[in-house]
Each structure stands twice: as C-alpha cells, then as structure tokens.
C-alpha cells in the first residue's frame, strides 16, 4: 500500500471528487487530501520537521482550513508521495503580450506591434523562474513531491471575453497561430525548471488539453469547490471529477508506474 497525499489549492477539489473512482481502480494507493485557498497555500511553508503550515491571513482562513481538512497543518513525513497542485506557471502574461504584438518570426495577424520570439521566450523563462522561487520557498527540499500545474483555463473561458479582459487575452492566445510553439517552449521550460529543482513534474494529461494552455471545456462542467458545493459557471478555471480522475491516473501510471486494477 502506497500513501499519496494531494496537497494544494482549490484545484485539489477535482481530485477529491474523483477519489472514489480512483480508489476503485487502484486499491493499493491510499489517498489523502489537504487543501486550502491559493494564497494560503502558495505562501505556506514546509517546516524543518516536514510539517506543512498554510499562510494564514486571518481567523477566517484558519477556520476554513480546519473545517475543510480537520486540521490546520499536515505532517508530510507520513506519505510516500505528495502530489502538489496549485502553483501556476501561468502563460497569462504571454497572452497579454500577444494581444497587441505579433511574433516577428511567426505569423502576421495584423497586430500593430511585434516582438521577437527571443523576447517571448525570455518572458517565459522569467515567469517560470519567478513561480519556481515560490515553489521552493513553500516546499523546501524534495520530499517525494510530484508537482503539477494548476489546470489550464477551460477553452470555454472565451464565452466571457466581452466582459472579462483576462478571458479575452487567454482565449485569443489559445487561438493564436504562434501559441503552439510558445506553449511547447513553456512546457519544456517548466518541466526543466521543476526537475532541475529536484522535484518530479507531472504535466497536465494531453487528452485533457484542447488548445495551447486551454483545457477541454467538458472538464470544467460541475467543478467542485473545496469548501463544498459547485463552482460558479463563469469560473472556467476549476475542473471536475473527470479531470481529477485523469490527473490521479496520470500520477499512478506515469509517475508511480502503477497499472490500474481494472486493466
């Protein structure tokens, strides 16, 4: 029996929803969860003795975490593997860049300005490094961590383009002819940085990806909130149990090399 903890932000909810289905498939993995809001998680710390303590801004934070998890902290030393979800090596900045810039070496989409591919790549390198510093500050040295990114926004976020500028930028990026090249560069940069820091990296499963940095919208329907209940239909960032199951299966098969019992 292997003990797997899923530790992280609100994106843990998708995996918690899938726990029943996953455990039926993989009976030799015992699942546990510890989740909180992103700011509590991302600025939390793993102490010298291996206990993760969230970053608490208020009594409300503390009560919420206790209500969700039954505890305010969690001892990581009792787990064989820890799947960390909630850091976001987001490509949003690139999406904003491509709103009014074309890539010099890429396609002409009629933008008034252009930048070089080298500049776009340098931005990616920097955003990855910046997020990685948060990761290392939070997690410290490796303790069988398996990192995965927060899910890419659902492609359905385009529905909010008119009233929500970030949605406009993200959906434009997903449809941009040069996005696949930048997305591939970003994937390699993230993987290389995370593994270079000594952690294992689990990319979002390819069959959940519908566009560069875009998740198939089917996975955002009926997404759950970590505090219980469902996410707003305008969310498009949190995923459902089907997505959670895909993630857990990926951990099991790709990282732990465990074949499901149902096979």
């Amino acid at each position, binding site marked *: 029996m292997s003990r797997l903890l899923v530790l992280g932000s609100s994106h843990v909810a998708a995996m918690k929803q899938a726990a029943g289905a996953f455990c039926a498939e993989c009976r030799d993995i015992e699942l546990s969860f510890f989740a909180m809001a992103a700011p509590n998680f991302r600025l939390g710390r793993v102490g010298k003795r291996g206990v993760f303590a969230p970053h608490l801004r208020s009594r409300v934070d503390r009560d919420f975490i206790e209500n969700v998890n039954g505890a305010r902290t969690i001892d990581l030393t009792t787990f064989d593997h820890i799947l960390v979800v909630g850091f976001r090596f987001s490509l949003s900045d690139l999406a904003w860049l491509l709103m009014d810039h074309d890539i010099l070496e890429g396609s002409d989409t009629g933008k008034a*300005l252009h930048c070089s591919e*080298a500049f776009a790549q340098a931005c990616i390198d920097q955003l990855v490094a910046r997020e990685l510093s948060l990761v290392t500050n939070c997690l410290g040295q490796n303790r069988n961590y398996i990192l995965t990114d927060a899910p890419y926004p659902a492609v359905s976020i385009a529905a909010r383009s008119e009233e929500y500028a970030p949605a406009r930028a993200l959906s434009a990026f997903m449809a941009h002819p040069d996005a696949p090249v930048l997305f591939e560069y970003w994937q390699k940069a993230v993987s290389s940085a995370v593994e270079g820091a000594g952690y294992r990296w689990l990319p979002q499963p390819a069959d959940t990806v519908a566009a560069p940095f875009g998740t198939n919208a089917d996975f955002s329907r009926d997404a759950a909130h970590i505090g219980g209940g469902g996410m707003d239909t305008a969310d498009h960032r949190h995923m459902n149990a089907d997505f959670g199951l895909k993630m857990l299966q990926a951990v099991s098969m790709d990282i732990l090399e465990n074949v499901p019992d149902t096979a």
Partner: protein
Amino acid sequence: MTSSPYEGLEPGAFWRTGVSEVRRFPPAGLYQARFAIPRDLPVLTAGSCFAQHVGRALVRNGFNVIDTEPLPDRIANRYVALSQKFGYGLYSARYGNIYTMRQFLQLLRESQGVFEPAEPVWERDGRFFDAMRPSVEPAGLASPELVKTARTAHLAAIREALSQAGLIVFTLGLTEAWQHIESGTVYPTAPGTIAGEMDDTIFGFVNFRAAEIREDFLALRDLVRAVNPDMRFLLTVSPVPLTATASGQHVLPATIYSKSVLRAVAGELYEDFEDVDYFPSYEIIAAHPSEGSFFEENMRTVSARGVRRVMRAFLAAHGGEDIDGETAPAIAASPDEDEDLVCEEALLEAFNK
C-alpha cells in the same frame, strides 16, 4: 561714475554665495527653465545611457513621455529589467542609446526616408543584429531579413513618435564614434563589440568636433521643425565618463575634452535659439563641488543619489516642487537601478583585459 557690472547681481552669479557657502547642493536657482513643460506636452526622449534616468524620472513624475513601441502594462511592470534589456521602455521608441548627435540625425533622416545606413546588418555566431541598435535584440535574430523587417516597423514607430512630439529631450553623450568610411554612416557601437567585425578598411574612428555637432543639430532641428514648427528642445550633457577612448589620448583628458565639446555646443545652441533649453545635469554630477560623491566606486556610474539630485533640480523648475527626491519613492531610483541601465558603451570594459 559707473558702478561695477557685477554689482546687484543675484547671489547665484557669485561663486561664494552661489556655491561655496550654499549648504545644499545643487544650489537653488542652478537651473531656471527657459520654457515650461506642461504635463500633457508629448515628450520624445533620446540620448546616451544617462538619458534613461531622465526619461524614467519624467514618466514617474507624470510627464507625457511618448512610447510608440510599448509593451502591455502588465509586461512592462512585471518584467522591467528584461523589457529594458530588449530596448523597451527606455526611450520613445526602441532605438536604444543614441550617443552622438550625428547618430540621432541619421536616425531621424532614415525615418523620413532620406538616409539609408551602410552595412545595416551585423552578424555574430550565425545571428544577425541591427547595426544601428545592436543591443535591443541581445541574441540577435535568425536572418538579415528579420532584422530588416523589424527595422522597417521601428522606423514607422519613430515617425509616429516624431509626429506626436512637442519637445525633444536629448542627452549628448559622446563625441567619439565609429563610422563607415565610405558613406559616413555612424554606429552606436564599434564593430566587433556586440556584433559585426572590425575591418579598418571599412570602418574608421571619428571624434566629432564642436562645429560638426552644431551643424548636425541644426540639420536635425530643421528636419523636426518641418514636422512640427513648434518643436522645442531640452539638451543635457551626460556626466558619465567615457568607458574607453580610441582617440589615442588617456581616457581622462579624452573624457574632459569630449564633455567640454558637448557642453560648449549645448551652451551655444542655448544662446542662439529660443526653442533650446539646457539643463545642467552634467554640472550637478561632475563639477568639482560635488567632489565625485554622485558617482559609484568606479567613478563612472552615476549613483542613485546623484540621479535623485539631478531630477530634484529638474522638477523644481518644472512644477515638481512638491516632490522631494530624498523621500519620494516616485523618483527614488531603486538600489539596483544602475545595474538596469542599458549601456553598450560599458561593454567596452569587457575588452579591457
């Protein structure tokens, strides 16, 4: 009975009351603006490394500094050093540092289609660089065609900047430059420094004389006034010494000579033209009353404190009296700001081995 012509002059006219007995440096009244700069007046900034300080301070203090090759705010604010490394946010377009008046004149002429630089693309290790602004793509581009495409767009951005501008703030940096011998095209860096290859049958050293710099300015003034007859100019001289000289002189007298020439030209232009103002940043930083205290240990890099003093004097004359450089974060340079400055000239130091 005629009294002395010095009688009754302002205290600032006398060294004792204007400098040596003044407790605060720079002393009040050191700079009196010839004309006001309304906050909404579109300002085009250009010049040598020190001009980056001036441009940033203008932006921070709400002046309408033109940027026709901007990044989205989100990128500009989150990737400040990176953006500057690629020439964004330094000046009114991505032309990088312009060290000589000739280079500035060439650039504006090129933007108007009346000048074409010789040897405009330089190569290094299979990558290609815009010889007229080699630092803005630090790793170069994949082909000469891409360099040309980028330059075409850049020239359009300069035309746009010029069409908007009501004031040009230019910092004169150097008299020394490298030029294409046959055509006279002047480059911001020596061939072989960032890219390209030095061939002394093609490229040669030039140390512009005062008369040449003046002529270049007059030609530039004619050009921009054809675009905007009401254009005004604010000139400064960079207090940053030469990193290296190719004049054959020792670098110290070469620096003093170069700055003296630039200061003399700026002074005469101020005397001769009502649309030209001169701001004494050079004097504040480099004159002996400051005892070199506004330079870093290398006695070349202007310290953040020095920049604050300069900008305080500038803002005091241009409606910035409510801002105290010592306390206002709005104009306080960050401790590492000097490291952020993009200065190709500093690359010459790498050749001093």
